[in-house]
């Protein structure tokens, strides 16, 4: 009677699980355990069928909570559990020992994994399951004893009870996601990461916000995204953020989905802040590098040369034939002027001041040793956009004449729909590398600071393309 009750408990718990979590196989597996168990109670069964319920129970424990053997360890564990059936047909106790050991071993391996995985071992289900397995291993040899028999049934009966408790607990955690929605209403800085970590119970969870070409945290620092340990969050079909989390959370996809959906709007807001901080950071770094370069040029070039002039002039004062020295001083001064001119060109191209972007691009094209066709249709542009566009064309054309082996280049600078598109295309051999050298990579940063995008495509010739917002 008691044994039939235990079997029925498995069957009912399994069916409930099946209904509540139709995507998981844990429910059907548990129902299978109950059915096989009850089968043995209706009469003597062949040895393999008679202990099949035990193997399915092992299978269920190992693959909990999804019911799918997703890792190599778990697949091996499941294999061993079914192989133990064959062993049990010859020597029942040995089979039991092999199967039980496999279940315990998989749990131990899980325990040694991540912090989040460790907590799974302590879930009501796995705990009751382990108690059952250990009890069976300990008491089976003395199963004839009525006390031991009763204890065994209680231990087995605990498993479906623990499973139902677990289901209830998950419902509660769905409730936690609902709470998350409420709490996200007024989170402080960096609050979403903490709230998501708490809701998903993964203290190491990190949120990376999409910044056009990489994920960054709220301070604008890059977030590394490991393979197979991250979930992308999209909003309105656009990439928004990434959750870097413990891989074990993949076992509860519906929980992550619910949490991401709940956090979507808050993440979207925070991404704007993260993106802004990244751009400010880049702008600050670029400005600093620029200042250093100007300081160096002024110090090494202009200042040293200027110093030589009063020296030459005081020599001239003391000389009986000052004319050659005065001439020397004049030449030195003109050389300083040349240095200053080059420096000015680097700070802000004078031709931009005189003629705007279209005129400046025409001048660049005229100076290029490779023939250039220019299309320029630009209206009034913000000065910083104009300057960056100029350097994109200048560097693009310098690249064409230096590396491309091209016979012709085409430059297009066109404003349309609130953006300025800059494109330099050549018919050369390609092979531009944005990761090497400072030229193209520096450009990518300058463009990013203006909120634009920058691409180099060198599959057929080289195409350097920058799109800059100018509305």
């Amino acid at each position, binding site marked *: 009677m008691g044994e039939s009750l235990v079997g029925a408990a498995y069957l009912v718990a399994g069916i409930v699980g099946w209904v509540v979590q139709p995507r998981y196989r844990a429910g059907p597996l548990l129902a299978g355990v109950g059915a096989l168990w009850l089968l043995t109670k209706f009469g003597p069964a062949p040895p393999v069928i008679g202990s099949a319920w035990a193997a399915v129970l092992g299978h269920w424990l190992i693959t909990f909570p999804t019911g799918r053997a997703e890792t190599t360890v778990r697949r091996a564990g499941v294999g061993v559990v079914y192989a133990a059936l064959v062993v049990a047909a010859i020597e029942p106790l040995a089979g039991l020992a092999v199967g039980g050991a496999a279940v315990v071993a998989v749990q131990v391996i899980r325990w040694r994994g991540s912090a989040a995985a460790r907590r799974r071992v302590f879930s009501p289900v796995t705990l009751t399951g382990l108690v059952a397995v250990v009890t069976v291993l300990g008491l089976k040899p003395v199963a004839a004893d009525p006390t031991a028999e009763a204890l065994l049934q209680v231990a087995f009966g605990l498993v479906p009870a623990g499973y139902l408790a677990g289901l209830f607990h998950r419902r509660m955690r769905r409730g936690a996601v609902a709470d998350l929605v409420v709490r996200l209403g007024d989170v402080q800085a960096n609050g979403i990461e903490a709230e998501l970590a708490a809701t998903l119970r993964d203290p190491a969870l990190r949120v990376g916000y999409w910044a056009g070409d990489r994920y960054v945290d709220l301070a604008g620092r890059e977030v590394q995204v490991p393979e197979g340990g991250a979930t992308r969050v999209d909003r309105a079909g656009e990439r928004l953020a990434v959750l870097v989390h413990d891989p074990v959370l993949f076992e509860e996809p519906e929980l992550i989905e619910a949490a991401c959906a709940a956090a979507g709007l808050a993440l979207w807001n925070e991404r704007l802040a993260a993106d802004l901080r990244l751009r400010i950071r880049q702008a600050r770094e670029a400005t600093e590098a620029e200042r250093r370069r100007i300081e160096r040029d002024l110090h090494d070039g202009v200042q040293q040369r200027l110093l030589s002039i009063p020296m030459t002039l005081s020599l001239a004062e003391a000389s009986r034939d000052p004319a050659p020295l005065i001439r020397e001083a004049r030449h030195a001064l003109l050389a300083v*002027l040349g240095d200053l001119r080059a420096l000015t060109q680097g700070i802000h191209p004078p*031709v931009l*001041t*005189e003629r705007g972007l279209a005129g400046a691009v025409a001048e660049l*094209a005229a100076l290029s040793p490779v023939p*250039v066709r220019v299309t320029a249709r630009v209206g009034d542009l913000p000065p910083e956009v104009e300057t960056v566009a100029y350097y994109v064309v200048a560097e693009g054309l310098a690249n064409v004449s230096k590396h491309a082996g091209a016979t012709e280049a085409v430059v297009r600078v066109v404003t349309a729909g609130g953006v300025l598109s800059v494109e330099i295309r050549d018919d050369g051999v390609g092979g531009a590398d944005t990761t090497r050298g400072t030229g193209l990579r520096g450009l990518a940063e300058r463009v990013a600071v203006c909120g634009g995008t920058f691409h180099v495509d060198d599959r057929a010739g080289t195409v350097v393309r920058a799109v800059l917002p100018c509305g």
Partner: protein
Amino acid sequence: MRVTLAEDNTLLREGLVRLLDEAGFTVVGAHDDAAGLLRSVAEHRPDVAIVDIRLPPTRTDEGLRAAGRIRRLHPGTGVLVLSQYVRLTYTVELLDGGAKGVGYLLKDRVTDLAELTAAVRQVGGGGAAFDPIVIDQLVGRRDRPDDPLNELSERERAVLSLMAEGRTNQAIATRLGIAERTVEKHCSGIFAKLTLPAHPDDHRRVLAVLRYLNG
């Protein structure tokens, strides 16, 4: 020779006036903007107008546009453009309409009294004075010991000198009494001998002229 000038920097303007006085020119006007220069040219009809490219109010290219106006409205006045920078595109614009009585120099060149005197006399006399930097930027330094200009045939020289006067191929053909196609052939020969790179906008004509003028 009478000269008027526009330069917005007071020190430079006074300096230029002193240098020009020293060199024996008569300075009939010294202005700090393009409007003043244009009035001065219309009133005095000087031999040469010297103009800085950046002038008030916008300090962009007012001087260059004033130069273009003077060349169109007062062909008798030569125009000498001064700038901190020498631009190929500006040279092309200035030479639109021929290479007579026009010059474009880096300000550095006129800090030397002799160079300034030579340039103003050249422009005032209907000649041209262009900064060698323009050519250097494009065709590189002349590393060949022999001047490619010497390799031109008599006919090519004649075509080039007419080109420098701002004449079209058709006008050159009429003047020399040859077919326009023949003029085109001579042009190709000139460009090849002067090793001028092909450009879609065809700056080669201007470059050939510059090479000839600086020859």
